[in-house]
């Protein structure tokens, strides 16, 4: 790790960009897929790119264009988009202990996605304080740019891609669950976490299959949190009995 710290001492933003490259494996396919879906939903390429640049939140963007295209009330589209993104409220406070006093941080929070959070949560504590802003700027802005570029590619070349490879639109969205899977798996660290996470995944899946797609995320997370607390109470009760 000291090697990483030394190598990033001169240009931490460059190190951030380099370390964000693996994120592109998940970002670009999903962004291309979003570009395609947006065009299919009746948006223009410029509109798709602007939505990606401004909202910059994968799952909610799919929901946004889908609901807008289906003619849902716009207030409901905004509420559902924000409801999906409400999970982001837990990310920045988790990073806060390692953020410096710079005024740049608030602006950079626009780029704090699931994947950038996962990367930053690992790397920021390992970096010297003076390098954190540069590193985060490089990683987060590079990921943002790749998301915008991927959307543009999907939107502009989408028709041709579909014509040449008709199954592409069906296959590429799998990047999304694959990415979430990779973010969740390392958290199966204890029996308690494993139970809570498994219950959350299964209940979200069941709710989606039965048609409660919009409620699935908050309800499933609430189920998981209850399970997490229930296991804690049970362990505490067991401990009390042993005493």
């Amino acid at each position, binding site marked *: 790790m000291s090697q990483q710290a030394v190598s990033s001492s001169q240009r931490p933003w460059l190190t951030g960009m380099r370390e964000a490259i*693996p*994120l592109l*494996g998940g970002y670009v*396919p999903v962004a291309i897929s979003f570009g395609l879906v947006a065009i299919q939903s009746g948006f223009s390429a410029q509109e798709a790119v602007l939505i990606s640049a*401004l*909202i910059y939140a994968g799952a*909610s963007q799919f929901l*946004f264009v889908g609901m*807008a295209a289906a003619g849902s009330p*716009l207030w409901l589209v*905004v509420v559902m*988009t*924000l409801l999906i993104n409400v*999970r*982001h*409220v*837990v*990310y*920045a*406070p*988790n990073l*806060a*202990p390692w*953020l410096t006093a710079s005024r740049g*941080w*608030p602006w950079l*929070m*626009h780029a*704090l996605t699931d994947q950038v959070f*996962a*990367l930053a949560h690992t790397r920021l504590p390992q970096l010297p304080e003076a390098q954190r802003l540069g590193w985060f700027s490089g990683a987060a802005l590079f990921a943002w740019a790749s998301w915008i570029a991927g959307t543009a590619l999907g939107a502009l070349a989408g028709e041709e891609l579909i014509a040449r490879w008709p*199954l592409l639109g*069906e*296959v590429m969205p*799998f*990047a999304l*669950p*694959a*990415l*979430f*899977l*990779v*973010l*969740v*798996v390392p*958290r199966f660290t204890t029996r308690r*976490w494993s139970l809570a*996470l498994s219950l*959350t*995944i*299964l*209940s*979200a*899946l069941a*709710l*989606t299959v039965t048609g409660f*797609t919009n409620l699935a*995320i908050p309800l499933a*997370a609430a189920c998981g*949190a209850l399970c997490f607390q229930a296991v804690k109470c049970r362990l505490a009760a067991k401990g009390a009995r042993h005493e």
Partner: protein
Amino acid sequence: MSSALWIAVLASAVGTLLLRLLPMLWMRRRLKRLDHDDGLEAMPQWLGILGPLMIAALLGTSLVPKTLDGISWLATVIGVLATLAVWWRTRTLGWPVAAGVAAFGAVVVLASWML
């Protein structure tokens, strides 16, 4: 795109930014106020619990295929297994996603040839 839809885009964008930004400002104030040596101790416990659970819920919803037929579910299972296998070997973010998409795609393509 109509002006109403543009307003919806901007409202979603500003709202999403605030969801990311305001908790950071709140936590910074809390850290300053409590003046803990270890900032992690000042973090409410529910924050550390909800983060992973929200991502798990997203995983659950995104696993459901567009068409609920046997082939799509089989492709999903194979894709998940491929993702897990490559993650187990590499412990990275990018390669497992690429492998998962490739495996999912291979099943879909094979099925379209055979049927």
